[in-house]
């Protein structure tokens, strides 16, 4: 991308194929290869720079001002928006950290279920059974539905007074007035449960593919050594799934960290702000309450937190792999 002439000349040569004098080896050829590579990258990079890199820097700049689209002049305020977030007693800090902790709770509460339930289901489906494909299809089906549909269906099912779930529980003699979408801790049960119901199929089929990828010889070898079911599970299945496990935990943590629709639609963030996730709070502050600059700062604090969690997660998984290898 340094020499305009080369850019103009290069495509003629490429498209001309063998015709014309071939460029001599060395600089021009490597330059041409560079140009070709960037040409291939260009459409993506155009989008990437405009809608990912650009906004990322734009957002940082915004977070350093008192940006409002409704004012003519934006003042540079330095790190004030960040300082406010870390200073107790400011308008945003308590609410922001509350919403961060809500997202944190959701990650802690949902990720184990979103990993373990699909793992168990995948193991069941991996048995020699009839209709495995049918079951797999059914378990995956909710995942193709949008969160708005999920919100509609479960909103009516989980309604405290007129919901079908409480009605069914009443029929079998259980309490029939549980506030599934209204009060803690039930809201958490609902949010995690609905999320598992909705997305469990995705992790299930990924685990299933991982299980199928484990060399069956390993099981046979273990059997010959007289290993029991549990032993085989711990020493063959789990190590064999390790790369898949890393992928699943990482993507599931990120997905849970970005949770928005479920609590927006089912609990409205309530009771109080108990289930208002950080995404919900940032979107509300930035777009509805016209606090764009603080919202931008919040989104970067969230990013930093997620980056730390991801790095820790990678480290942890890698350590385990290394230990496993020894």
């Amino acid at each position: 991308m340094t020499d305009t002439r080369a850019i103009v000349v290069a495509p003629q040569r490429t498209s001309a194929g063998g015709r014309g004098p071939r460029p001599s080896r060395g600089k021009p050829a490597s330059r041409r290869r560079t140009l070709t590579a960037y040409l291939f990258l260009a459409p993506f990079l155009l989008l990437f720079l405009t809608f990912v890199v650009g906004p990322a820097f734009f957002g940082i700049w915004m977070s350093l001002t008192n940006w409002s689209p409704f004012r003519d002049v934006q003042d540079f305020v330095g790190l004030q928006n960040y300082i406010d977030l870390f200073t107790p007693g400011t308008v945003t800090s308590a609410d922001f950290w509350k919403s961060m902790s809500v997202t944190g709770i959701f990650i802690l509460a949902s990720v184990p279920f979103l990993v373990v339930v699909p793992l168990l289901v995948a193991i069941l489906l991996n048995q020699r059974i009839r209709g495995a494909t049918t079951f797999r299809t059914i378990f995956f089906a909710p995942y193709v539905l949008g969160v708005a549909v999920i919100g509609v269906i479960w909103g009516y099912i989980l309604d405290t007074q007129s919901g079908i779930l409480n009605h069914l529980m009443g029929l079998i003699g259980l309490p029939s007035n549980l506030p599934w979408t209204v009060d803690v801790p039930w809201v958490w049960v609902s949010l995690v449960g609905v999320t598992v119901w909705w997305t469990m199929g995705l992790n299930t089929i990924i685990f299933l593919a991982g299980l199928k990828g484990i060399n069956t010889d390993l099981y046979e070898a273990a059997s010959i050594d007289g290993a029991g079911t549990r032993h085989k599970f711990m020493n063959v299945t789990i190590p064999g799934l390790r790369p898949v496990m890393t992928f699943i935990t990482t993507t599931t943590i990120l997905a849970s960290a970005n949770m928005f629709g479920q609590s927006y639609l089912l609990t409205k963030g309530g009771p109080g702000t108990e289930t208002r996730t950080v995404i919900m709070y940032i979107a509300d502050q930035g777009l509805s309450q016209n606090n764009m600059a603080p919202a931008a700062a919040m989104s970067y604090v969230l990013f930093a937190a997620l980056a730390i969690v991801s790095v820790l997660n990678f480290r942890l998984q890698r350590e385990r792999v290394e230990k496993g290898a020894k």
Partner: protein
Amino acid sequence: MNKPWARRAIGASIALVIGIAASGCSASGAASGGGVTGDGEYTGPDVNVTFWHGWTGGAAPTIVPELIQKFNAEHENITVKAVPQEWGDITAKMPLAIKAGKGPDVAVLHGDDLATYAAQNLLLDAGGILDGLGYAAEDFPKGVFDKGNFRDAQYAVPWSVTPLGLYVNKTVLAKAGITEIPTDEASYTAALEALKGAGVAGEWVDGYVFTGTFEFQSLIWQFGGDMYNEDVTEATFNSEAGVKALTWMTDMVKKGYSPANVAQDGNIKALISGETAFNWNGVWQTTNTAFDDLDWVAAPVPQIGDEKAVWSSSTHWVFPENKGQDKNKTAAASVFVKWMNDNSLGWAETGELPAANSVREDPALLEQYPNLEPFMSQLEYAHYETVSPGISEANAQITLALNQALTGKKDPKAALDDAADKANQIITQNQAKYGD
């Protein structure tokens, strides 16, 4: 030859990003200070007028298109295009859309939003059209007209008022052997007690905007309090009156008159399905078709506190000042607003009370819509929403306090105190944000 193109495109995209960032620093167009006039005539070139409103439910989806079709047929050079969406979506989208020049030419807003828009220079002065319509403050219920007044300019034309009322499922009420609709604290409590004896939780109290917050606001006014002080510099909803109001609501649950943990809309659903007898809800429910098979009646909300008071919202016409707003469109929009006002008798079909006294007090209205009577009778003591830029964010704290108190997270006083502290911070922030 597409390699230079790629290079230019990348360059252009970088320039674009930088340009957008830079444009934030520069002035984004001086306020034109234009206004809307309304002599009811438009003689300019053919225009399309975009109209945003939030009447998505009830009878509005049939009535609004009918009215617009009629207007378009009568006006050769004007085509109004309605864009209905949730009120909440309008709040979230409209300010930014106006800034982008993608907003409507005319819209309907609730009273509590007007100042926020006006403070952000998003609205045109509507004084002219009010003159054209011949409207003045005394042509509307007390307090409605002034909602559109901000820093000595009038930005809005009142359109409708929507007070709260008491909806009664008479079949359920009869189970407790009661035929009289309660009107005060004593009779209301007696009815609730009788219903409790019949195994019915008489009124389901919820901790959401619809309609717990409206009920709370009605009560605080009944107990002689208010949400904010006169010039809206301090939250006062944690006053003694506020605590009384919220305690009355939490006591409903404690005494077994209401189930705990009612979900949003749970109470109106329960009324329809015959599980409860009373629901404090807005006049807009009078046209809910789900009531068709019910034996129901609406009444003024009972007087629980020391004086009569009830919450009401109001809706208003506004003329957005889009980036590059076409003057012809605004002129045509004002013709539309005048026409709608002249033809607003049928508006009650949507379950809203026309704001203009002349229309609302026309006997023909009640003849056609007798259910509106109890709502009309409350207007003399109705209180409307607080006006101040950015106030809705502070108002959200009230709902939060309700929700926390009703789910037992905090006692009423603590919940309201915490919410008031927060609301005060937001008010201070708003003063910085929207200027003074």
